[in-house]
């Protein structure tokens, strides 16, 4: 009897709990559909769209993680940008800052104190309210060395970390050791993390493991326009509308418009083109120029857009690592050529950059003589000489460096060094990137005319990166970098001699050359200079040094080429990443257009 009563009681409890849950869920779903009085939502300008529908877009590779702390690869960042939000955001179209989770900010006159005011009544995508503790937690985690956050260095100014202090429930103060050149732009990209979900993992030291792709949808939340719905390994990642998102359109209806975004994992560029062409995907970005013209020629129900020059710069660099005594004699001999500045200048002078733009990018790109592309006019040093191709100058430079031409038995002339050894080396390039392989083939032919024998070796990207950064077994390499902001600061680890992306000689303990030491100094200075004109002057000098010493021989920069179905509203591609998804909350499907098939 007792047992029976107990079980009835249990049933009753279960029923009550279930009912409670249903009510909870019901209120959770119905509540945010109209903005409550307490919520301070951000109204964004732009064409008003239609609610519902979904878009399908292909990703070149599977995202490595959903965790913004450790995301380093482009696809992870692209996915995360739709799921997370920052305090102050850089508008990808205007490249200016605008309020995000912080509705306003104040910078003290000495440039050392930033006071940010948080919006009221915001909620994470799981309905949990956002408060100041989340913000404090976020920056504590990013600054914790044990976490190894990828962007941690940007919060260390003059060797001292930024301190974060709560003033009241809505106000937070960031105290800097020295003024920070970028100003409020520094807050872009720091996703505010849900303390309620991550604190336990953080205390256990397992934060880096959280946010893996297999994470259950209810165990992951953010403040972005979309939240995790489903992940099928190797196939797709589905995000659904975040019902608590904090932006509205001009009419006051809550964004985002779309119900879902489906990311398909389509590893090859050609397969992406085919999927887009057959209507399986709605948008396509990171297109090569040749595929762009194929799609443009056959355009039917989609529009193709050349958004203009982007921030990707491609370059050739030589192995300038100090390999010590263990280095084989052959590599040491080659390095003695590569170390000669005149040799590098001669190579640069011999490269036909215009041909690269025409043959590789079909004219949809720009030749480069420095790391700052025409897509970033604000930071480019206009004084850098755009030296045209001149084989005569190259030959002269090589002669000055002690190289000479001899004629080989087959009638070809060959370049030999001072010891009479023929100049032969190989250029490694990523096999999956057809553009760079083509650049390398053009360079091979250019250098043949100087009498150099060059071989092009396409390698799988991972083994290429491994050779460049770990084993250092290579002669020369063609690679590209895409900055994710127009500002020079995200490039710090490329230019600082101790940076791990200082490709020609990464992670040096002391700068190997005087000019690298000078770049270090200039980059540190521009970090703390408050006035933009002064920063520009310092960065101009960095560009001058790079152009003079040619540690990287800059080649060309492609335009941002994208496409979308005509049915996608508010499609305004930007030259900053993510090119087509930067305004994902405003994208919509026009007049109930048929959704792309899954």
């Amino acid at each position, binding site marked *: 009897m007792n047992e029976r009563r107990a079980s009835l009681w249990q049933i009753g409890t279960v029923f009550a709990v279930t009912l409670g849950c249903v009510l909870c869920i019901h209120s959770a779903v119905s509540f945010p559909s109209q903005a409550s009085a307490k919520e301070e939502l951000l109204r964004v300008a732009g064409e008003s769209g239609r609610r519902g529908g979904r878009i399908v877009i292909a990703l070149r590779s599977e995202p490595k993680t959903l965790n913004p702390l450790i995301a380093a690869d482009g696809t992870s960042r692209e996915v995360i940008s739709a799921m997370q939000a920052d305090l102050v955001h850089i508008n990808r179209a205007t490249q200016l800052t605008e309020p995000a989770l912080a509705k306003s900010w104040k910078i003290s006159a000495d440039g050392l104190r930033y006071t940010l005011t948080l919006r009221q009544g915001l909620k994470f995508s799981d309905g949990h309210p956002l408060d100041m503790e989340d913000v404090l937690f976020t920056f504590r985690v990013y600054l914790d060395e044990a976490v190894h956050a990828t962007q941690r260095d940007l919060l260390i100014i003059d060797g001292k970390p930024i301190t974060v202090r709560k003033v009241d429930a809505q106000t937070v103060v960031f105290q800097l050791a020295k003024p920070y050149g970028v100003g409020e732009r520094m807050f872009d990209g720091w996703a505010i993390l849900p303390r309620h979900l991550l604190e336990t993992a953080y205390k256990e030291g397992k934060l880096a493991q959280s946010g893996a792709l297999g994470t259950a949808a209810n165990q992951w939340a953010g403040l972005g326009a979309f939240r995790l719905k489903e992940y099928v390994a190797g196939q797709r990642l589905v995000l659904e509308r975040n019902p608590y998102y904090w932006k509205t359109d001009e009419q006051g209806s809550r964004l985002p418009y779309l119900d879902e975004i489906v990311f398909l994992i389509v590893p090859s560029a050609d397969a992406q083109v085919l999927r887009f062409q057959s209507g399986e995907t709605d948008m396509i970005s990171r297109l090569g120029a040749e595929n762009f*013209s194929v799609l443009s020629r056959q355009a039917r129900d989609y529009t193709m857009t050349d958004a203009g020059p982007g921030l990707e710069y491609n370059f050739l660099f030589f192995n300038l690592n100090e390999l010590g005594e263990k280095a084989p004699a052959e590599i040491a001999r080659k390095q003695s050529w590569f170390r000669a500045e005149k040799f590098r200048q001669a190579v640069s002078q011999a490269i036909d950059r215009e041909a690269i733009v025409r*043959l590789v990018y079909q004219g949809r790109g720009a030749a480069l003589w420095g790391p700052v592309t025409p897509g970033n006019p604000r930071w480019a040093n206009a004084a850098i000489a755009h030296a045209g191709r001149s084989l005569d100058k190259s030959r002269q430079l090589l002669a000055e460096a002690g190289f000479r031409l001899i004629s080989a038995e087959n009638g070809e002339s060959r370049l030999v060094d001072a010891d009479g050894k023929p100049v032969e080396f190989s250029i*490694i390039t990523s096999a999956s990137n*057809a553009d760079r392989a083509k650049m390398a083939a053009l360079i091979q032919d250019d250098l043949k005319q100087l009498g150099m024998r060059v071989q092009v070796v396409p390698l799988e990207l991972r083994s290429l990166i491994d050779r460049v950064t770990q084993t250092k077994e290579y002669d020369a390499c063609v690679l590209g970098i895409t900055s994710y902001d127009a500002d020079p600061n995200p490039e710090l680890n490329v230019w600082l001699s101790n940076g791990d992306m200082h490709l020609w000689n990464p992670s040096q303990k002391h700068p190997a050359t005087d000019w690298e030491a000078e770049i270090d100094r200039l980059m540190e200075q521009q970090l703390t200079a408050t006035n933009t004109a002064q920063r520009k002057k310092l960065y101009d000098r960095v560009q001058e040094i790079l152009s003079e010493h040619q540690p990287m021989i800059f080649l060309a920069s492609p335009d941002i080429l994208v496409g979308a179905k005509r049915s996608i509203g508010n499609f305004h591609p930007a030259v900053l990443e993510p090119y087509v998804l930067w305004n994902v909350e405003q994208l919509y499907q026009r007049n109930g257009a048929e959704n792309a098939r899954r």
Partner: protein
Amino acid sequence: MSTRSRLLLCVAVLAALHLGVACAGFFAPYDPAAQDREHPYAPPMRLHFVDGQGGLHLRPFFYAQALRSGSFDAYEENRTRAIPVKFFISGAPYRVLGVLPLRMHLFGGDVPVYLLGSDGYGRDLLSRVLFGGQVSLLAGLIGAGLTLSIGLCIGAAAGFWGGWKDEALMRVAELFLALPWIYLLFAMRAFLPLAVPPLKAFLLVIMVIGAVGWARPARMVRGIVLSAKERDFVRAARGFGASGGYLLRQHILPETASVVLTQAAILVPQFVLAEMTLSFLGLGVPEPVPSWGNMLASLQHYNVLVSYWWMYLPALAMVPFFLGYLVLASLLQGSRGTSKIGEVFGGV
């Protein structure tokens, strides 16, 4: 037509084709690696005999092509000026069969002439097909030669001696038959230094092709040797005190000639195809040295596949060669048994 005259015709056609490829430098108007950056993906030019006014020209002529303004792969003909084809002109240096240096080319023009079009770097496709044929065919011929010599030696040894030697050799042959050779090559490539010069890469390809293919001919040769060594005339010779070497040389191996020749005719195209596969996958000779395989590799890109039909032409180039070899093989096979090879080729 008798078998013999058919065979002769087939051999003559094949010889002519090979001669054309061997003298690629003469028939090709340009150096196969020379880039013409003003003319990427130029379509094949048409040779004309009748001009715009209806006038007939005995000497063929063509119109110069230039990129349409604003485009990077669409060309238009400049019909205002007819450019006559010139014969026996001096151009890029080359060596006939790798020895005789020459500059004379069969044809050319005052402006670049691309009879089969050009590739993405503006390299003449005709020149590349001809020079590429040298690499691909040579790989096939040397590979087949190597395979057959190894196969002949091992097959004869196994068949002649029999016993445990036969067992051992045949088990090894089966092992080689079961080897996935493409993965073997991947593995071998991984052990080599990063950059392999074209000649080394070429030798490696031949070595792998030759080393892996010997098992099948060896088994066939062994079968013939097994039956031949029991024939009466062989036994008689043995009875007269002939040595093993003499028997093999004089009586047994000649019996295998027809099989070996048939095998050769089958193996050459097979090995040409193997070289093409390897180069297509980027494991063969490296750019800019052409081979039929690495020329077709550009078709791995979707835009090339749908935009430039003339990039398929290297695939067509192998058709007459393969056809020739396979017809030869079937003729040889047909004549096998009825007559000895010596009789078939008696008059050649």
